[in-house]
Each structure stands twice: as structure tokens, then as C-alpha cells.
């Protein structure tokens, strides 16, 4: 049985009829065409599909789109817009070479966005703990941690 749902994605409300079994990640990718959110494992172990639902990080493969009816969803596409400068976290990833293939990057970014919304002065250990549920097969994590620290600093200075 199809269900009609409305989800606000990066500020735009989308209303669609979906099968209940469609995951939120598939909804974003196939219904809305936002393919920045990646699926690595589809059973909750890789973290590539991490997005924010009502400001809180979640795995979009472990949630059905119908469960997000009426929610506010943020994906990597919402971090910066074409032509505009990158988000400080994205800029830091670029500066620190915190990605190679980029497959894990959307999930890393969204997870770190949540951490940086909680504290703009995290320790390295807190950064490592935050991304412990995000697997990267390329970088060895060190540059990702450095990027998070750079972004936190940039965001602190921006505030002053």
C-alpha cells in the first residue's frame, strides 16, 4: 500500500507517494534525485548514508522514508550551493586531503556537522569517537581528523 508523505529536504518540501519499504536514503537518491548520500552496506555498519533528521545524525539505510514524514532532513547537498564558497568543513576536507575516492565523505561530513553543532572546540579524541561509525577505506582517517580540527577552528574564528 502506497503512503503519501511530505519531507523537507534542505529547505524544500517534497510530497510523494512511496511504498513503506523504501528507505529514506533510497527516497533521497531515487525520488528526489539527491545522489550525494551514498549507500555502502545498507545494513547500518559503514556510515556512508549518514544524514541529519531534525538536526540529528542518523543512518538513512536504517530508516524508512515513511518514518520521516513531516521531518526536516539535511543532506550533503545542503552544505553549500553551486558557485558559493564551500562550507568551512568541506573546505577543510579539501585543504587536508581528507578524501580520496570520496565514497565515505558525505557521511563523514554530516556526522561531523552534528559534532560541530554540539561543540566548536572538540578534542581529537571526540572527533575520532564521533566518526567511529563511519568507515573510510582510503585515507587512514588521520587527514579527516585534521580536517575536523581545522573546520572547528575556522568556525570558532568566524563567530568572533
Amino acid at each position: 500500500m502506497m503512503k503519501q508523505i511530505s519531507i523537507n529536504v534542505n529547505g524544500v518540501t517534497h510530497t510523494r507517494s512511496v511504498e513503506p519499504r523504501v528507505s529514506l536514503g533510497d527516497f533521497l537518491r531515487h525520488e528526489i534525485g539527491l545522489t550525494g548520500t551514498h549507500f555502502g552496506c545498507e545494513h547500518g555498519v559503514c556510515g556512508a548514508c549518514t544524514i541529519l533528521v531534525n538536526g540529528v545524525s542518523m543512518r538513512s539505510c536504517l530508516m524508512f522514508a515513511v518514518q520521516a514524514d513531516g521531518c526536516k532532513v539535511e543532506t550533503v547537498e545542503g552544505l553549500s550551493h553551486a558557485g558559493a564558497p564551500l562550507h568551512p568543513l568541506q573546505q577543510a576536507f579539501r585543504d587536508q586531503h581528507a578524501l580520496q575516492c570520496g565514497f565515505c565523505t558525505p557521511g563523514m561530513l554530516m556526522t561531523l556537522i552534528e559534532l560541530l553543532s554540539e561543540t566548536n572546540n572538540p578534542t581529537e579524541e571526540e572527533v575520532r569517537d564521533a566518526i567511529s561509525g563511519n568507515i573510510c577505506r582510503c585515507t587512514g582517517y588521520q587527514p579527516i581528523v585534521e580536517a575536523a580540527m581545522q573546520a572547528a577552528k575556522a568556525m570558532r574564528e568566524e563567530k568572533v
Partner: protein
Amino acid sequence: MKAPPFDYHRPASLRDALLLLKQPDARILAGGQSLVPMLNFRLLAPQHLVDLSQIDQLQTCVITSEKIRIGAMKSQRELENSAELARVAPIFPEAIRQIGHRQTRNRGTIGGSLCHLDPSAELPTLALLHDAIFEIASTEGVRHASAQDFILGAMNPALEEGEILTHVEMPVWRPGHGFAFLEHARRAGDFALASAGILVAVDSDGRIARLAICIGGLGDRPIRLAAAESELIGAMPGKDMFDRAAAHIAALPAEGSIHASAAYKRRIAETLLKRALETACARAAHMVSVA
């Protein structure tokens, strides 16, 4: 890796949820952090999923200096970050931080974990350690079960068809009690090979006045070390006492897996238990000296 088809229901009241659960082949959907992977793997194919997320009654939490009462749909992360809970039962944030990852704790619920009953999960171990009482609703009314009676084994809660776990209630230990929750996993956030939870109160001489020990991950369910708890009343915290407690691990049922043999898991449990006792006793003693 896509879930099989099902009908989705999101009732706004417990009554409606109980009625919806009466449909054939209906299952409860709480946070979905264990259920959805099982659906994606097609290990399960229920006809109906009843999502409990919109039922306010299941979100209520009462925390006083005597008892903690937590609604089944409270997210693990809310509990992890609750200053009130940390004040009366500081073992909660310590244990909950070790569950999965932040993304799964944001969505995973206490009730979901307590009904899924993975043998290495932190919350069932914590519930048993804390002498939790489970409140269970059905269309017939409400009943209560002790953690001991509720946790029957791996993925085997004492729930009848059509019943919903609504709350868990736990007595609070006196201010100044010592606590520790330690586990060992192959990688951060993985299922633990073994875990140890301790609650302890010491008297003014620093001797053990009250003790609770719960070991998780060894067999098909967490287990209280009742014999060690009573044997060690009056003992002085120290290496000798920690060794005496750890000697009880040898008698516990343990199941090996490809990751760790039963003997290896017991070794880990012994070490975790000794370390957790040391930490818990030090914290309790510290509180005594401050008081």
C-alpha cells in the same frame, strides 16, 4: 539489500498500537537499528510494522532520587545526555556511550534494545544489574516482570503475542555509590566479546556494604554473579577481593564464536571484572572520603 514489502502503521496512542498488533504477522518497529538490518537481509518479512514513535506515553521519563522510570521509546542518545540520569545513576551514560555509534544511538531506543536482546548488548546487562522491572501492556491490561524473568535468552524476551514493553523502572542506589561499566570489542562500537557492570556501596571503613555484578556477552544472556555478590560483603577492596570475584567467572556458561573461543571470552570477562571492580570501588571510596 532492500526490505520486503509490508504495511506501515504509525498509531498515536498505545491503545491503537495494541489493536494494530492484533493483526496477523504484525511486528513492532521501535528505533529500527536492529530490525531494519534484519529486514534488509530478508531474515524477517512481517506483513505489518507498527511504529511506536508517535506515542507520547512511551516517551515519558521520571527520575527521582528513589527510582528511575523510562519510557520504552526514549532514544539511547537522550539517556546518554540526560544530566538528571547521570546524577542519580552515573553508570547509565558510561554504559550507553559504548552502544554502537552516535548515529545508531540517536535512533536506537532503550525498549528496542531490551526486547531485541542481543546477548552482548549493554542495556539488558544494565537492566539486570539495576534490578529493573519491565512494565508490559496488552489489551488485557498491564503486567510487570523482573529483568531476570524477562530476559530469557538471545532475541528471546518474555513477551506474549500482542504485548508491548512500555516502561522500565529501576531503583536508584544511594548517592556516593561506586559504578563502572567496561566492555571489550574488536573495534570501537562492535558487539562486545564480553562486558562487566558493577554497582557498589562501601561502609565508613571502606568495606563492601552492597554489591551488584553483571557480566554480558559470554552466553545467550547477561548474568548476575549472585554468589560473588554475597560472598564479598564485608570484604576490603583490593587485589585479593578482585581475584575472588573473578574466580566466579569460570563457572559461567560461555559460547565461543569465530571471533573468540569460550575460554578466551572468560579470560576477557575476568580481566574486565577486575578492572571494573577496581574503578567502581575507587569511585565509591572517593565519595566516602569526600562525605
